[in-house]
């Protein structure tokens, strides 16, 4: 029965343009910035290292990327923090 219905009303394919759009947004920023993926990874690691000195990071919830804004490239980050390490932060 489902087969018959699908024959008459083919499943709506679609949505691949969202893939195109998100790929393009990343691609264009990186074309402009001229950082290699490994340099980008190194920058990410170093930034997280600094944050880790002050706070405990949830490593699976780290988002750090370059985005194109109206007036140039922005480094956008969202880092989930488990708890701030007050003792370390004060000591530094």
């Amino acid at each position, binding site marked *: 029965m489902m087969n018959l219905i699908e024959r008459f*009303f083919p499943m*709506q394919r679609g949505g691949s*343009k*969202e893939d*195109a759009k998100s790929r393009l*947004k990343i691609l*264009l920023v990186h*074309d*402009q910035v001229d950082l290699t993926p490994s340099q980008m990874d190194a920058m990410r690691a170093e930034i997280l290292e600094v944050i880790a000195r002050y706070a405990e990071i949830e490593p699976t919830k780290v988002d750090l990327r370059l985005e194109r804004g109206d007036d140039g490239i922005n480094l956008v980050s969202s880092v989930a923090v488990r708890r701030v390490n007050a003792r370390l932060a004060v000591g530094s």
Partner: protein
Amino acid sequence: MSECIVITSGKGGVGKTTSTANLGVALALMGKKVAVVDADIGLRNLDVILGLENRIVYDLVHVIEGECRLKQALIKDKRVENLYLLPAAQTRDKNAVSPENMRDLVKQMKEDFDYILIDCPAGIEQGFKNSIAGADRAIIVTTPEVSAIRDADRIIGLCEAAELPEPMLIVNRFRAKLVKRGDMLNKDDILEILAIPLIGMVPDHEDVIVTSNKGYPAAFDDKSVVGEAYRRIARRITGEADVPFVALEEPDTVWSVMKRWMGLGPAKEVAS
């Protein structure tokens, strides 16, 4: 006032030559005096798209090297008043021409023409540099694909670096059906990414292939939707304000209307 416009894209095969030919025809049909220049030295094609390939005697390199006068190399299109082609050399390479040569050539041509359209070769090398050298502004051709848009973005950057003000965008090979079902970037997606003004959208249509087979650009054909899209772009080029965009929708069928009623099809969306 005379204006030189370079038609460029970065990526090959997105429709620069077809666009140049059609805009040349459309502007000439509006009564403007137009020269289209093939700057793709070594890989000329504009002559073929215009159906003028059998009439070439001299070419752009001959003019630049002083082997003939400009007027001898210009081929007059007999189908419309005031359209001329300056063909590229087929047996030379891009290094036969320099940006200074092109600047001088364009300056000379501006004495005789309202519009000089330069068909730029693909790439960002010498041929591109030559093509933009004499231009007052650029029209960037792209298609709704990741690769073409990426290259367009690069070219926009290079145009800005070369102080070509405000490049404008033609989105070519637009397919309303794919946009409706979310499988093709739409006008707003592309403009959001490239952030330059749109000068026109051209549907993906068999007219383009049929007309290129014949060497008879669609802009000559009153009934062609592709021709209509280019004629509207030509009007915008001349500064005419508020030229409405052609509805780039697939015509409704009984079936598509029924599906929409039953909530099975996507909502009707005008593409441009």
